[in-house]
């Protein structure tokens, strides 16, 4: 698929911009702070309904404007779809597909699939476990839109359960039978919805494992191999080779329900004392390892960056294997890499149906990525 057209109204620094795009490579070049990232951020927003830079939507709306509108024309299998999102801070977004209203924004997930590489990706390797859980869950949702519902159900179960545990902890006496029976019910809910999420994550990790190892070896041929290990908050870890280990990547959903229920029963006293949900996929970790050492805390800056690229490239490979090339977005990634890595990354992404690159200077766009070039200056974009 590719984005054939982008139109912004009051998005970030843009009062209004109209942009026609083509398949192949498009480079957006201009000095710092001119609005290059803002452009690709808008395209990423249409795909994931979130920004890769900020958690809330408020900063996406041009200062002083009441709302922002992002319109994209997406071409897939020679058919064009027009997706429009009106971003309303503090209220639900309005979403339209081919000029017809779509009742729930999440029904549009999957219409545009992107893989976005950005300087923020360093947090995938160096940041909190939450960053890596989000990486897995966003990829799950892109591959299987139904997972958007599972994720929001799971978040709600955890919220409900935390509210219950908190009120139990606040009572400061032994919880009565009604409270415990209610907790039993929410345990079942957490085990059921949690097992669905966990099973999907394990399946995803199994699929990503060889792809990440391959992508990392391509970008950084020297040094140790990149490995993924899934560590569950109550079930232990998968082994590095998927044999042995406490948790097998092939564990099915029904079995995970039973395992989660058992784990919750064991953790009950501790959870009642602390007043929060201590076990479940929301506490899990995707461990990244380079050779014998964990990447987090040990890998060099360049190695961490290459690992992050490896994760994104693997995501691209996986989505591509599902049938349709996602749109690749590379925001400012080449400036950080040495000449060899730069060239290898460029070669890996060049065959994609559409690649959007941003760079502060023309020299930061590798020669391997030939294509259209746009100058971005002061809130306007011009084809060169």
């Amino acid at each position, binding site marked *: 698929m590719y984005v054939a057209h982008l139109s912004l109204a009051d998005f970030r620094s843009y009062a209004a911009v109209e942009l026609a795009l083509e398949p192949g490579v498009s480079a957006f070049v201009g000095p710092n702070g001119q609005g290059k990232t803002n452009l690709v951020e808008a395209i990423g927003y249409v795909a994931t309904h979130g920004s890769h830079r900020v958690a809330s939507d408020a900063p996406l709306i041009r200062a002083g404007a009441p709302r922002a509108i992002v319109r994209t024309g997406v071409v897939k299998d020679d058919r064009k779809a027009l997706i429009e999102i009106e971003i309303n801070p503090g209220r639900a977004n309005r979403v339209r597909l081919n000029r017809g209203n779509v009742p*729930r924004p999440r*029904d549009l997930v999957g219409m545009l699939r992107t893989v976005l590489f950005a300087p923020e990706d360093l947090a995938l390797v160096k940041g909190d476990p939450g960053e890596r859980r989000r990486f897995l869950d966003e990829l799950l949702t892109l591959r299987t*839109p*139904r997972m*958007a*519902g599972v994720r929001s*159900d799971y978040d*709600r*179960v955890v*919220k*409900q*359960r935390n*509210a*219950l545990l908190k*009120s139990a902890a606040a009572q400061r006496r032994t919880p009565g039978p*009604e*409270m415990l*029976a*209610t907790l*039993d*019910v*929410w345990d*079942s*809910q957490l085990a059921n*919805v949690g097992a669905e999420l966990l099973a999907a994550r394990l399946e995803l990790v199994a699929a990503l494992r060889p792809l990440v190892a391959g992508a990392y070896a391509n970008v950084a041929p020297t040094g140790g191999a990149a490995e993924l290990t899934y560590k569950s908050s109550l079930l232990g870890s998968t082994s590095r080779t998927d044999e042995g280990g406490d948790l097998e990547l092939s564990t099915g959903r029904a079995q995970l329900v039973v395992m989660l229920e058992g784990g919750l029963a064991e953790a009950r006293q501790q959870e009642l004392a602390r007043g929060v949900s201590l076990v479940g996929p929301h506490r899990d970790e995707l461990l990244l390892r380079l050779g014998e050492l964990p990447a987090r805390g040990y890998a060099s800056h360049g190695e961490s960056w290459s690992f992050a690229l490896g994760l994104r490239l693997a995501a691209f490979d996986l989505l591509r294997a599902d049938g349709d090339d996602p749109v690749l977005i590379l925001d400012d990634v080449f400036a950080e890499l040495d000449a060899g890595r730069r060239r290898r990354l460029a070669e890996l992404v060049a065959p994609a149906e559409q690649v959007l690159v941003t760079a502060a200077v023309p020299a930061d766009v590798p020669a391997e990525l030939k294509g259209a070039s746009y100058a971005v200056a002061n809130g306007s974009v011009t084809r060169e």
Partner: protein
Amino acid sequence: MYEGVVQNLIDELGRLPGVGPKSAQRIAFHLLAADPADVLRLSQALIEVKEKVRFCKTCGNVAEEELCRICRDPRRDENVICVVEESKDVVAIEKTREFRGKYHVLGGAISPIEGVGPEDLRIRELMQRLADGAVTELILATDPNLEGEATATYLARLVKPMGLTVTRLASGLPVGGDLEYADEVTLGRAFEGRRLLDV
């Protein structure tokens, strides 16, 4: 802010569910401009609903007498009780004309976030109705969301020792809709709840 009485009206309207400050103001000014007879009818309806309508002693449905219309009806099957969250769910199921048993209105669903636990629902009253063993089937028709599921599971576990038949409404695809327009959650649930086709 407006003069005392007008602002009072806006404040009172603003406390209604689904009415924000802007709508409250719009409704208030609509009433100010309306025919006095219309406003009188509305105010009488409000007073009457509070004076005359109460909740059925047995099932918790809205009623004009001690018992609601359904509980008073001798033709309804005493042996089956359908448990719902709100009175409006009774109305919805009645429209189907599929169900000839009686109802039990819980008054909500278990939701710790909103501070609603089993003790805040009409569960004790339900257990009293089941005590004499006359009821043989309990249909759990709470909403098909997390809170409704939790409430159904809670009840199913509670009545398990009594040995009656407990069923849950199938949550599936809306009839008359196209499969391709069903959202993933509904379609996913429908897949899980699929049954053997007897031919």
